[in-house]
C-alpha cells in the first residue's frame, strides 16, 4: 500500500512538473494516433459507405471480412508491418522501420477495418431509409455513397472515435514496428509496459492516468458535439 501511495505522490509530482520527457511521450502518442485515425477515416469511411450502398458480387463476403477484421490482434498487424518494412522486406528500402511513420502505418492498418465495418453498419441502416428517396431524385450510385456519408456524418463520428480509442490504447503493434526507442518511438502505452517491467511504477502510473484522461476527454468532447448536432438534425 505504501508503494502505491508513494507512486501516486510521484505521479502528481510528474504531472505538475511537466517533465520534457513526459511531454514528448504524450505528444508523440497523440500525433501518431491522430495521424493514423485521420488516414484510416479517409480510407475506412468511404470503403464502409461503398459496401453499404453499392451492389456488387462479393459484397456479403467483403462485409463478413470487414466485420471479422475488427478484431485483428495488434501484435499480428505489427508483425505484418514489420515484415513489410524490415530491411529484407518489400518496402525495406524506404527505411521506415523503427520510425513514428511505421507506427502510423501499423495503427492505420489496425483500425481501418474497424472504422469501415462500423461505418458500413451505420450507413446500411440509413441506406434502407433513404434509398428509394435518393433513387427517385435520380441519384447515381456513387453520388448515393457521398450523400449517405454526409447525411450520416454525426453518427459516423462514433466509428472514428472507436478507431482512435483502439489506436491510442494498443501497444503490441507500436512496440514491434517502433521498437520503443527512447526519444524517438516511445509512446504512452509502450512506456507504461516498459516502466512497469522495470518496476518504475510512478512514471507508468502517471502515463496511465494521462492516457485515460485524454481518451475520456476526447470522447466526452466529441460526444457532446455529436449530441448538439444530432438534436439539430433529429
Amino acid at each position, binding site marked *: 500500500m505504501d508503494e502505491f501511495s508513494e507512486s501516486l505522490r510521484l505521479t502528481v509530482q510528474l504531472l505538475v512538473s511537466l517533465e520534457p520527457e513526459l511531454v514528448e511521450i504524450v505528444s508523440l502518442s497523440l500525433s501518431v494516433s491522430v495521424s493514423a485515425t485521420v488516414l484510416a477515416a479517409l480510407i475506412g469511411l468511404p470503403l464502409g459507405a461503398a459496401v453499404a450502398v453499392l451492389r456488387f458480387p462479393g459484397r456479403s463476403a467483403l462485409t463478413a471480412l470487414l466485420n471479422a477484421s475488427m478484431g485483428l490482434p495488434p501484435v499480428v498487424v505489427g508483425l505484418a508491418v514489420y515484415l513489410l518494412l524490415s530491411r529484407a522486406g518489400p518496402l525495406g528500402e524506404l527505411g521506415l522501420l523503427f520510425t513514428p511513420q511505421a507506427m502510423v502505418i501499423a495503427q492505420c492498418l489496425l483500425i481501418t477495418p474497424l472504422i469501415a465495418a462500423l461505418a458500413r453498419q451505420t450507413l446500411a441502416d440509413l441506406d434502407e*431509409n*433513404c434509398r*428509394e*428517396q435518393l*433513387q*427517385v*431524385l*435520380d*441519384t*447515381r450510385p456513387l*453520388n448515393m455513397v457521398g*450523400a449517405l456519408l*454526409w*447525411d*450520416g456524418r454525426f453518427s459516423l463520428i462514433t466509428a472514428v472515435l472507436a478507431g482512435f480509442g483502439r489506436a491510442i490504447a494498443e501497444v503490441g503493434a507500436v512496440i514491434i514496428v517502433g521498437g520503443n526507442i527512447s526519444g524517438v518511438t516511445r509512446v504512452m502505452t509502450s512506456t507504461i509496459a516498459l516502466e512497469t517491467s522495470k518496476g518504475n511504477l510512478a512514471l507508468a502510473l502517471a502515463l496511465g492516468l494521462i492516457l485515460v484522461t485524454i481518451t475520456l476527454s476526447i470522447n466526452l468532447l466529441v460526444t457532446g458535439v455529436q449530441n448538439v448536432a444530432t438534436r*439539430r*438534425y*433529429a
Partner: protein
Amino acid sequence: MMPLKVSGVRMERNGRALLDEVSFCLAANGVHVILGPNGAGKSLLLRVLHGLIEPDSGQIEWAGRTPVAAQPELGMVLQQPVMLRRSVLSNLTFALARKGVPRRQRKAQALRALAHAELESLAHQPAPCLSGGEAQRLAIVRAWVQRPKVLFFDEPCANLDPRSTYKVEALIREISASGTQIILTTHDLAQARRLASEVLFLANGQVQEHTVADLFFRSPRSLEAAAYLEGQLLL
C-alpha cells in the same frame, strides 16, 4: 413522354396477386388520379410505372421507352418523403445537382422554388425538423426543380390537415398548369373530385374502370366504383 401504355402488368407475392393484369393507356394531358381503397395496389402500381420495381410480367412503355430508360424524365413524391439531413435549401440544391445544374445557378433556382412552396423563411432550417405540411411542400418542389415531364404523387395529402392539403393541392395545380403530367394516387374521393381530369379506379389489384373525371363521378360504369362513390366500405 406520353402516351403511357401499360399492358398485362402482373405482380404476385406469396401467392396473392397484388397487380392483376393491369392494362390502360394514358394519352391526354392533365391530372391522372389513381383512385382506390387502401391495399388496392396504387402505390405498387406507381413504383412499377416509375421503374423502381419490375413487374413479374407485362409491359410498360413511355412513348415507346421502358420505365428505366424514361426514368430521368420521371419524378416522384413518395408518400413519406425522406428529408435529407441538411438545410431546406440544400435539399433543393442536392436535387438540382443530380440533374447537372451548374453550381452557380443552383441557389437562385432553389430559392425560386422555395418561394412557390412558401418556405423562403425556412431556407436555412434543418429539413428534418419541418412540420408534416412543410416537409410535403419541400418534397414537392424538390421533385419539381428537377423538371420532370411526368410527376408522380403517392397519397400526397395523407395525414395532412385541411389547410396544408389546400396548399399542397394548389402546388399540384400549379405544376400541372406548367405542362407537367401528373399521376397521383389517393383514396380520398373529395381530393379526386378536386384534382382529377381522368380517373383510373383500382381495386384488388385490378383496373375496374378508366374514365374522364366528370363522367366517372356522375355515372361510374363499374359496380366497385359505384359502391366506392356511394361511400360503401369496399373490403
